[in-house]
């Protein structure tokens, strides 16, 4: 572990004397790899054949380093490093606890599966217009948001993510994508601007932006002013996470881009917003979090109930999946609203389930759209006869999102319900159960309409769908292969959830008692 500069060295006392240990650099490796990989792919934009392989290789390396990071965090507790030889809180700190490490690892695995699927949709133009560099930049932004320990740095990663997502959203330039990008763009820029306003207030109140330092600084700040900043953070991250009153942009945009892009957006972007809310109200300003808890609980309950209703009403397959994404956000927010050990552990485990299952659902929806040539669930039908494998994967996903055994969402919902019962928060418990019932109605209706029914809606729906075609060789190899990667992860984590639940419990314990996190950040600062 590095130490402060000794007296005989020509360095100010706020500098680290020795180099940071090489092992501690592990915290920044995922972000650095993604950024360097994106730059390299931009330089190699002419070498179209090379792009997919290099991008997959970089993503794989990121997944491996995230795996090592998680193993280290689980074994030794939170890991931190501070940039530029400054001692914290002066330098920009990267710090990761079990929550951030689990999310970062899941992120890179989802990205890897989507990278397998992506070649199905890419023509020469899209490859040369930077699909793979933008995907890596998006991964860079998401990983940075999960690993950073500095509030303003978090804002920067949000913007990296936003800019990459703009490029991916409009790639192809169809009118529906431009329309979606206008709605997505304005509301998300507005949300990040509000985030910046709240960050400015926090800085004005405390004089620091380092999250570990803010924990002590916010305890001394005047509470009413802090609650104002906290309320702005709820608005900002609530919109980013697509929580109930601020989620109009998600159903308006997530069905417009390529399927691979939909899958990455649905799996990752909303989770970053939720993660920021958890980090903020558990770590950075717990006192404001206590005051604002009823607001978070109300947002969570309303999101849980309204989202599956939207899914029932949707006739566009990927729009319906978008409403499931919103429902998952409500579930994680419910864990934050409960704010106890079981609730937070349940939220962490549920987030992992949601990332994997939403990506898989979008990929399956994309394959169905290719087979039926439409996005309208009323004109689909008869997929079961054409591709039993895809149908089996989809029914398993229906069970997984609804929380039937033996899938991961069941275990996380049990944790959440335990947390709700021990907190005596019966409204949240009722909302979680109601969400489960509505979600199973919505998801099984999708299965019945798209897969089970032989033909179009209306008269003669029993006649076979004339527009359907089976998956061709490439589609079943690449598309079903990518789906299989996610399905294996979902099944394995559902059947053997112990390790993940233990990691979730560690994450929750570190959130409730942040001393280990603060200790890791300030390990290098000499104690007076």
């Amino acid at each position, binding site marked *: 572990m590095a130490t402060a500069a000794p007296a005989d060295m020509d360095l100010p006392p706020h500098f680290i004397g020795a180099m940071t240990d090489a092992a501690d650099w592990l915290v920044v490796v995922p972000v650095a790899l993604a950024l360097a990989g994106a730059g390299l792919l931009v330089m190699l934009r002419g070498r179209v054949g090379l792009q997919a392989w290099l991008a997959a290789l970089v993503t794989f390396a990121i997944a491996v380093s995230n795996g090592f990071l998680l193993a280290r965090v689980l074994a030794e507790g939170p890991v931190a490093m501070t940039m530029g030889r400054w001692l914290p809180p002066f330098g920009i700190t990267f710090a990761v606890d079990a929550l951030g490490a689990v999310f970062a690892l899941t992120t890179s695995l989802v990205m890897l599966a989507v990278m397998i699927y992506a070649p199905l949709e890419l023509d020469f133009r899209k490859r040369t217009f930077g699909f793979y560099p933008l995907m890596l930049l998006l991964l860079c932004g998401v990983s940075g948001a999960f690993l950073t320990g500095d509030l303003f740095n978090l804002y920067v990663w949000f913007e990296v993510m936003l800019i990459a997502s703009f490029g991916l959203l409009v790639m192809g330039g169809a009118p529906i994508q431009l329309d979606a*990008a206008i709605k997505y763009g*304005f509301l998300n820029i507005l949300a990040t601007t509000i985030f*910046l306003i709240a960050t400015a207030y926090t800085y004005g109140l405390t004089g620091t932006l380092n999250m570990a330092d803010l924990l002590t600084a916010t305890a001394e700040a005047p509470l009413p002013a802090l609650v104002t900043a906290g309320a702005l953070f709820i608005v900002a991250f609530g919109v980013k996470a697509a929580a109930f009153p601020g989620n109009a942009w998600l159903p308006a945009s997530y069905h417009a881009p390529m399927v691979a892009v939909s899958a990455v957006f649905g799996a990752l972007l909303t989770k970053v917003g939720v993660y920021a809310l958890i980090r903020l109200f558990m770590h950075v300003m717990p006192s404001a979090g206590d005051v604002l808890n009823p607001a978070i609980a109300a947002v969570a309950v309303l999101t849980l109930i309204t989202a599956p209703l939207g899914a029932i009403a949707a006739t566009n397959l990927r729009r319906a999946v978008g409403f499931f994404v919103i429902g998952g956000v409500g579930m994680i927010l419910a864990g934050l609203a409960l704010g106890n050990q079981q609730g937070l552990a349940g939220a962490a485990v549920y987030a992992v389930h949601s990332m994997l299952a939403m990506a898989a659902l979008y990929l399956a929806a994309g394959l169905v759209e290719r087979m039926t040539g439409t996005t309208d669930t009323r004109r689909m039908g008869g997929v079961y006869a054409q591709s039993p494998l895809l149908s089996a994967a989809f029914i398993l996903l229906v069970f997984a999102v609804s929380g039937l055994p033996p899938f991961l969402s069941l275990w996380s919902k049990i944790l959440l319900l335990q947390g709700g019962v021990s907190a005596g928060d019966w409204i949240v418990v009722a909302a979680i159960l109601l969400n489960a019932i509505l979600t199973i109605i919505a998801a099984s209706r999708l299965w019945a309409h798209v897969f089970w029914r032989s033909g179009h809606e209306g008269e003669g729906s029993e006649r076979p769908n004339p527009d359907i075609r089976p998956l061709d060789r490439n589609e079943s190899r690449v598309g079903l292969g990518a789906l299989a990667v996610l399905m294996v992860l979902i099944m394995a984590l559902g059947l053997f959830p112990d390790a993940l639940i233990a990691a979730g419990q560690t994450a929750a314990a570190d959130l409730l008692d942040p001393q280990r996190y603060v200790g890791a950040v300030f390990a290098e600062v000499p104690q007076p």
Partner: protein
Amino acid sequence: METALSVLVALFFAAAVYLLLSRSVIRMLLGMVVLGNGVNLLIFTLGRISGSTPPIVPWNASAPLEGAANPLPQALILTAIVIGFALFAFMLVLAYRAYKALGTDDTGAMRVAEPEQSPRPPLSY
């Protein structure tokens, strides 16, 4: 000085909200620019207007002089300006492309992604 700047920030925010409530994409873009500048001014004000001494640490000292300007808000604002400019440039091109493709700059009339005559939900089962 802080009070005057606070009032100015409030005026910026009010103008930005007014412009953002418009349906015309170009007005909304202008609202974004005004909002971004308002936020930059807010960060500057919240860093406290502490003095005009440059925040340079003198030789053989380990802290800047008393009354030095706060350098951190300037670094934050610089970052925010760069990001805001990039996003504005993108949104401007997007607004132009959307106008060409959709034939309107009225966000209320952009209904390709969410059709106006929304079909009824599937009724069977």
